[in-house]
């Protein structure tokens, strides 16, 4: 063999080794680049470009301050580029929710909270936004322009609302969550929470808010989604371990099988026979039941898997008399309802608000559940349950003869004819139809038959043609009415008010906000004050004709007044307000925003003399 071959082999090997090393360093170099790209949020890296997007569309929300079909103070303002930021103040081009603070929990129409709500579920309102491109989110920024601090939870959905084919599996993942905290400034801010990395791309983001610590309405301008188009390489930095995570129920930490987890817990499992149950054998049955009453639903289900005795306790229908499924909206589906069915035969309060959307609950599944569990139902919360259709309402009206409270708030996809069935629920005491498409005839029918009504909300019911006729019917039939919400009922006049005032003397709460057709010169407010001495809450928001005479009548006649909103009138002077403040000792909320005669000096004086009253004065800049 010539000597050149070993030389060649050595050379080739040497060359090969060099190449390999170069390739390896190159690969590592590339990886380094991509790390740098992620860390520096660079958009120029060709490997994994960061995408920054404003929201394309607002697809769902639970409430808003503005009028339907308007662009003033409505949720649709959250889409697109910011209109106002970085200015602070009360601007029309922002997204505003319907309520703030605890005022709505303190008024006569407040409903009792469900017990056994997990302490980490504090969400009161939500809004869902879509973006153009699906990305792996790296940041979600919320531009808040007034009274920031309401956002407490951000979630991402795996479904693409713009894809033509329905998704195989829909998953919601919590990107960030925190207890409500007070933000001291009311100035605009760009809220940049630290979000978790998830392993699916998303273009559907959901914000959940809690406004209970706010001094006034929060206003949101835009939402920015930062993300990567391709799945990011795991960064060298480990993600911060949030102490809150460790306290949460572990089904929220298990990213991949959340749904399965909940359903696993809910399903009955076979148990081995144990020797004894320790001290539990000594405790009386009722006492164990009482102890278990304090457990949240997932804990109850976990406990059921420990031993036969506790299994029996945890599956006892007495544990399911008040059932709050709203905190689990992201996981609850037909299967969950099926598993729960057997235990829910005695359920009296059922909260399915926010559940079932995007195909999670079907009409058939809901109907089956209600057929088993509806007979004792007294209170049914179905706010924002978009899976509902006419058949569901028919089933409710047939299966729930004892129903006293029905909440269909923001079920704006329910067709008008669905509401005809509600008239069969003659025992109804509370009915919430905020932002629904209920029509005049159906509503008149309901009012005719549901004479036990005490609480009625018709806020933003835009399909009603003539509110005077409605008011007349209420005055004639609903003698027990205590609270009435006519927020944005566009065409009610003094005639309707007169019938209300004379027909429902027990009224304690009346919301006539943004009803522009009421004119004080007709004497309608004075009449109201004289005929409704029990009034505790009166909202005359943006009624420009409220004047001193009306305030004086309220001061004389409605001494139990606790909450009064006279935003935007130019005809009320500090003198008459002082009389009101002196006369109504229980007054705790007074909104005089945009009342031109009440300047900041007057407000300061009032604050000094009446320290128990929260006087609200909003401003634009």
């Amino acid at each position, binding site marked *: 063999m010539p000597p050149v071959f070993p030389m060649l082999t050595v050379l080739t090997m040497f060359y090969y080794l060099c190449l390999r090393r170069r390739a390896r360093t190159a690969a590592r170099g590339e990886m380094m680049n991509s790390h740098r790209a992620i860390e520096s949020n660079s958009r120029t890296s060709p490997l994994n470009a960061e995408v920054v997007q404003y929201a394309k569309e607002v697809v769902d929300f639970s409430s808003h301050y*503005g009028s339907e079909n308007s*662009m*003033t*103070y409505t949720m649709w303002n959250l889409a697109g580029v910011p209109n106002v930021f970085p200015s602070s103040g009360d601007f029309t081009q922002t997204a505003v929710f319907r309520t703030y603070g605890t005022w709505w929990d303190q008024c006569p129409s407040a409903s009792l909270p469900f017990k056994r709500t997990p302490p980490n579920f504090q969400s009161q309102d939500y809004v869902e936004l879509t973006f153009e491109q699906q990305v792996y989110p790296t940041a979600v920024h919320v531009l808040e322009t007034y009274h920031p601090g309401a956002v407490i939870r951000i979630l991402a959905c795996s479904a693409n609302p713009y894809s033509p084919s329905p998704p195989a599996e829909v998953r919601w993942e919590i990107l960030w969550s925190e207890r409500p905290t007070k933000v001291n400034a009311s100035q605009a801010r760009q809220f940049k929470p630290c979000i978790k990395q998830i392993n699916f791309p998303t273009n559907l983001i959901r914000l959940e808010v809690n406004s209970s610590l706010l001094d006034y309405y929060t206003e949101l301008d835009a939402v920015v989604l930062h993300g990567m188009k391709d799945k990011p390489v795991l960064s060298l930095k480990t993600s911060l371990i949030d102490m809150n995570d460790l306290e949460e129920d572990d089904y929220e930490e298990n990213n991949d099988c959340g749904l399965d987890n909940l359903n696993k817990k809910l399903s009955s499992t076979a148990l081995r026979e144990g020797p004894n149950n320790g001290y539990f054998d000594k405790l009386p049955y009722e006492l164990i039941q009482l102890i278990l009453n304090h457990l949240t639903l997932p804990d109850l289900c976990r406990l059921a898997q420990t031993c036969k005795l506790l299994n029996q306790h945890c599956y006892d229908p007495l544990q399911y008399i008040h059932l709050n499924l709203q905190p689990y909206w992201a996981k609850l589906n037909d299967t969950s309802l099926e598993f729960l069915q057997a235990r829910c035969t005695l359920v009296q309060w059922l909260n399915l608000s926010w559940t079932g959307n995007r195909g999670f609950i079907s009409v058939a599944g809901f109907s089956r559940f209600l057929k088993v569990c509806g007979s004792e139902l007294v209170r049914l919360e179905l706010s924002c349950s978009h899976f509902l259709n006419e058949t569901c309402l028919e089933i409710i009206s047939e299966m729930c003869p004892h129903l006293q409270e029905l909440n269909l708030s923001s079920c704006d996809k329910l067709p008008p004819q669905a509401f005809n069935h509600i008239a069969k629920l003659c025992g109804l005491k509370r009915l919430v139809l905020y932002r629904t498409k209920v029509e005049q005839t159906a509503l008149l029918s309901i009012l005719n038959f549901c004479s036990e009504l005490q609480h009625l909300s018709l806020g933003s019911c835009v399909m009603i043609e003539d509110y005077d006729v409605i008011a007349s019917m209420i005055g004639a039939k609903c003698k027990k009415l205590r609270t009435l919400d006519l927020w944005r009922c566009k065409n009610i006049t003094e005639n309707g008010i007169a019938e209300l005032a004379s027909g429902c003397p027990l009224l304690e709460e009346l919301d006539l906000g943004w009803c522009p057709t009421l*004119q004080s010169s007709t004497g309608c407010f004075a009449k109201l004050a004289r005929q409704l001495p029990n009034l505790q809450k009166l909202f005359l928001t943006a009624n*420009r004709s409220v004047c001193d005479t009306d305030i004086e009548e309220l001061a004389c006649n409605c001494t139990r007044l606790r909450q009064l909103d006279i935003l*935007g009138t130019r005809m009320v002077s500090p003198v008459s307000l002082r009389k009101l403040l002196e006369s109504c000792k229980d007054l705790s909320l007074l909104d005089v*925003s945009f009342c031109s005669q009440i300047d900041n000096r007057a407000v300061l004086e009032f604050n000094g003399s009446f320290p128990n009253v929260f006087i609200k004065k909003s401003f*634009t800049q």
Partner: protein
Amino acid sequence: MFSVLSYGRLVARAVLGGLSQTDPRAGGGGSGGDYGLVTAGCGFGKDFRKGLLKKGACYGDDACFVARHRSADVLGVADGVGGWRDYGVDPSQFSGTLMRTCERLVKEGRFVPSNPIGILTTSYCELLQNKVPLLGSLGRENKWRPFLFLGSSTACIVVLDRTSHRLHTANLGDSGFLVVRGGEVVHRSDEQQHYFNTPFQLSIAPPEAEGVVLSDSPDAADSTSFDVQLGDIILTATDGLFDNMPDYMILQELKKLKNSNYESIQQTARSIAEQAHELAYDPNYMSPFAQFACDNGLNVRGKQSLGRS
């Protein structure tokens, strides 16, 4: 050249839109690309400061906007009616906010190009959704000026539907528009007046003045639609222009418009506005307004000498 006068409300606001081809693929047969508007505006308010008009700016008592959406370009002018000044109301607030609301509506696409009255109606309704009260204050000093906008306004909206090459207009009051093609006026708005010098108005009256204030719903606007061609010039203006400059003078100025780029249009707009401005203060000039006034039995020269309306 321009003296400061304390009386007389004169605003000449001219917004010119020159129709031009936005699509550079101008050659080779077919229908060509979409049309587009090249716009410029100029105006003079009471303070007689000359100024280039920013989009959506408010000048004197008048305001205007230019906005575009996917398929349409929209121009609008609004003339604040001076009569409210006696009530302590700044007329520019209302007209300015009306135009800004129209602009926002257009940018968000909440309109139908063939229905410009819809833009006015929707904008008017949106104005009512403001928390700030839209009422006049009688005889009181207006302490909250930044927050209150109120009064009345005339309005003219012009929508160019780029794909169908049609112009849709809506006109309420004595603002108006002209379409000039080949040196001649081919379309114009009709003047709408209840009676002399009190045009139809959109307004929101204070409760204490109910029944006294003229108030028309936006549906009383005059609306037209017609085809337009490349090279057409659309002039929208408030009454300050039309009352002081007869057509032939306007046409003379427009003839000087050589091409459809922004600078020349801006120059032309400015010269038209300047001329109208001069003529208003010319005591010897018999303006169209003066002519009309004479026909109605009043003796005036220019419009300024009529004093406050």
